[in-house]
């Protein structure tokens, strides 16, 4: 991680007379502030704000610009993201703008009111509401006497014109953080009507790179921060002269592609190799386990004996109570009963029997269970044997219920017995057949197995194809477009649709009558599965049989895998920790030329030149003059290979062999500020500003016609 430098606080604010303008280059990526007439801005920092919470004091603080990650541990950044006041290239969030201006003026050394005129840069055709709010902010909060707004690309062009890189008539192609602009200049003034803007810039390139890498290497998503992606972009990305042929190189030619690929090795510590435990280790571990097991067993035994003791105590108490009741007479009996908490003698008796049963169980005796079964049979159906006449109506109902229960349980028992008998018979027959002719038997078995497994797989495939979308959705009840429904689902849909619409026109009154719900009875509930069950069980049985007797048998399910498995989880090796940036090197900056790659439906920068020239509506000689002094500026134009590619791109739109000259700005990043500083230092600057009085007088309408004159 590169070291982050934060600007120092300047100390010479008071030295400048109040007529010296302060020059601010308010860019979407960096904010630069300095004095007019100088060559370097005093302070430059990233144009972002974050507002985390300080952990120890709990207050929310504002931090402007890049931060040292080591110091960020004192702050809680969970609810504060890094925010920018810009959207594309227009300022719309003035709260953050205020924090940034605070910091900017603070770094410049302001300690009393900012009483200097300000020259601030903006984008082409900045909307008037943005200008108005900026003016309001500067006038009201900072006490600035007068302001001027200028276009940053125009300042850059004028500065380079003075240096001789471009002429009075020319074209400026500027690739910035959030946008790209093409501005034609005629007689030194930008022609705003012929300007052209595409909403792709350095930000989109970095974002594209970051997302591509994190999709390709999902384990390392945390490493691909935005700042790291920017670093990678600045260091490794280039623009291919011919995109399609570069793609072909990477696709076909392995060595050349290897040369062009860059690798980033993340720190990786191989996991410590585990040695197979030695004999002593094993013995020791076994002994420990034995001891632990024994301890557990002792504890269980102790608990059991404790439980037995308790139960015996309770039993004896209850029996005592019974004796007392027997001996005592009426009134005493009720007193004893109320004291003990039982309501009647019956209850006490049942409690005693329960206690004895649990006691027996705890002691591990089994004859209690059998007795219980018999007892329960007689208990459960006590009324069955009693003839009808002796019972009350309630008891009659009870008796009917009990008869039903009894018959069903008996029926179940009988069915189980019959099945067991059938099994035994079948087994015997099979053994006989096998004994007679082992070969034939084996053949038959194998044939039957393959037949069944075919049927099974086919059914499974049908179900899978009919009910699955993209392999990972859990519900099978939902129906999407374009999927084959199996017969049951089709039937269900048909019934529901007809039930809903057969009513009559108008509202849907399904469900108002009880009979409506019977529709659900008509639907088959996954009748596939019932049919499957028998086949499935037979399949399993045959498989197990085959495994026993046939040495060459391999179960179908092990051999074939229908659906490919998702990428297996295997231990990560050093390979996985090496991030390869091959094709992304030139794929990401290509977005400037083909914004369609990230879904933005606008023209790329080479086509923007032709659009701009067309909007100019001048004749050919003027266009030729313009194309002979094209300036390439802006931070995102620093990719290697930008100029040759632009040239070949623009040549496609110009007449054959017309002259074309592209020059890169002297310093594409700071030239805008330098141009603005030179402009502010000139004597004519004061006439171009507007003051608080003007603003109060005209309001926002002032900005509809406000444009400064750049030629000096």
């Amino acid at each position: 991680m590169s070291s982050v430098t934060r600007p120092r606080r300047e100390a010479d604010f008071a030295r400048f007379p109040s007529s010296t303008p302060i020059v601010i280059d308010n860019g979407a990526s960096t904010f630069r502030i300095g004095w007019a007439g100088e060559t370097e801005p005093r302070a430059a920092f990233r144009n972002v704000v974050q507002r985390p919470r300080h952990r120890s004091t709990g207050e929310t603080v504002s931090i402007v610009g890049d931060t040292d990650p080591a110091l960020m541990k004192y702050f809680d950044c969970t609810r504060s993201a890094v925010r920018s006041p810009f959207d594309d290239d227009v300022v719309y969030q003035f709260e953050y703008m205020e924090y940034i201006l605070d910091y900017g003026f603070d770094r410049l050394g302001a300690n009393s009111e900012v009483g200097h005129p300000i020259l601030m840069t903006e984008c082409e055709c900045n909307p008037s509401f943005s200008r108005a709010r900026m003016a309001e902010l500067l006038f009201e909060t900072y006490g600035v006497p007068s302001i001027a707004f200028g276009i940053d690309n125009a300042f850059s062009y004028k500065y380079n014109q003075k240096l001789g890189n471009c002429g009075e008539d020319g074209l400026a192609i500027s690739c910035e953080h959030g946008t790209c602009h093409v501005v034609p200049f005629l007689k030194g003034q930008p022609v705003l009507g012929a300007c052209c803007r595409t909403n792709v810039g350095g930000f989109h390139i970095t974002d594209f790179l970051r997302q591509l890498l994190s999709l390709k290497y999902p384990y390392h998503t945390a490493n691909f921060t935005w700042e790291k992606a920017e670093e990678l972009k600045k260091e490794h990305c280039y623009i291919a002269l011919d995109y399609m042929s570069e793609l072909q190189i990477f696709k076909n030619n392995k060595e050349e592609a290897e040369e062009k690929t860059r690798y980033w090795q993340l720190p990786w510590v191989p996991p410590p190799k585990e040695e197979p435990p030695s004999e002593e280790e094993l013995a020791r571990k076994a002994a420990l386990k034995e001891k632990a097991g024994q301890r557990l067993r002792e504890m269980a035994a102790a608990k059991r004996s404790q439980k037995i003791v308790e139960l015996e105590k309770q039993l004896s108490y209850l029996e005592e109570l019974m004796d007392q009741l027997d001996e005592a007479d009426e009134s005493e009996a009720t007193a004893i009963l109320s004291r003990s908490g039982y309501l009647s003698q019956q209850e006490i008796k049942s409690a005693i029997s329960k206690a004895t049963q649990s006691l027996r169980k705890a002691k591990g005796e089994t004859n209690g269970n059998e007795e219980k079964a018999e007892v329960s049979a007689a208990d459960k159906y006590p009324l069955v044997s009693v003839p009808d006449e002796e019972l009350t109506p309630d008891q009659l109902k009870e008796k009917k219920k009990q008869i039903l229960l009894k018959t069903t349980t008996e029926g179940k028992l009988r069915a189980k017995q019959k099945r067991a008998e059938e099994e035994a018979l079948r087994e015997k027959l099979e053994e006989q057949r096998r004994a007679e002719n082992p070969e034939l038997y084996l053949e038959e078995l194998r044939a039957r197995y393959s037949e069944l497994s075919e049927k099974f797989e086919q059914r499974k495939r049908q179900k899978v194809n009919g009910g699955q979308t993209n392999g990972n959705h859990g519900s099978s009840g939902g129906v999407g477009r374009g999927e084959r429904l199996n017969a049951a689902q089709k039937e269900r849909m048909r019934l529901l649709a007809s039930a809903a619409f057969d009513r009559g026109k108008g509202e849907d009154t399904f469900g108002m009558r009880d009979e409506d719900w019977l529709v659900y009875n008509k639907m088959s509930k996954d009748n596939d599965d019932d049919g499957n069950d028998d086949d499935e069980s037979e399949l399993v049985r045959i498989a197990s049989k085959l495994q026993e007797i046939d040495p060459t048998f391999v179960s179908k399910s092990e051999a074939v895998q229908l659906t490919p498995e998702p990428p297996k989880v295997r231990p990560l090796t050093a390979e996985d920790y090496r991030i390869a940036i091959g094709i992304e090197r030139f794929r990401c900056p290509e977005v400037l030329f083909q914004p369609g790659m990230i879904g933005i439906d606008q023209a790329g920068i080479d086509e923007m030149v032709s659009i701009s020239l067309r909007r100019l509506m001048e004749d050919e000689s003027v266009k030729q003059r313009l194309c002979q002094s094209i300036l390439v500026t802006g931070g995102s134009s620093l990719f290697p290979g930008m100029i040759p590619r632009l040239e070949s791109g623009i040549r496609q739109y110009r007449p054959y062999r017309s002259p074309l000259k592209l020059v890169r700005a002297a310093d594409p990043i700071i030239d805008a500020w330098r141009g603005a500083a030179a402009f502010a230092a000139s004597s004519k600057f004061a006439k171009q500003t507007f003051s608080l009085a003007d603003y109060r007088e005209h309001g926002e309408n002032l900005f509809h016609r406000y444009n400064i004159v750049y030629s000096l």
Partner: protein
Amino acid sequence: MEPEVVRAEMVLAPTLPFKKVQTADKYPKGQSRGRQWKHLRHLLQAADASSMPPDRPNYLNIQSSPSIYPPKRYCDITGFEAPYVDPRTKLRYADPEVFKQIRMLPDEYVQRYLALRNAAVILR
């Protein structure tokens, strides 16, 4: 405040000498300001309605038009040229190996690849 934080001068001071109105007074604590700031789209729409002669260049006028060339189709996973589209996921792919990989991708990754191209399905 920890000494190193103070030394690094990271944090903005709550009151600054050159300001007529301090931030804390302008944006009192406790009020959620998240929804006060309208997005640029809405502001531009509002500005459109107000008086602005259409012949003068304004922010929306100078936007570049869609490209006259049809967009080239690139593979979503590898970046090569992609003549094929997977009908189930709508991802573009270059050759059969990539297709196998696409079919094994979990749904989340499919949507992220589509989002790179601004083609993801957004359910609101």
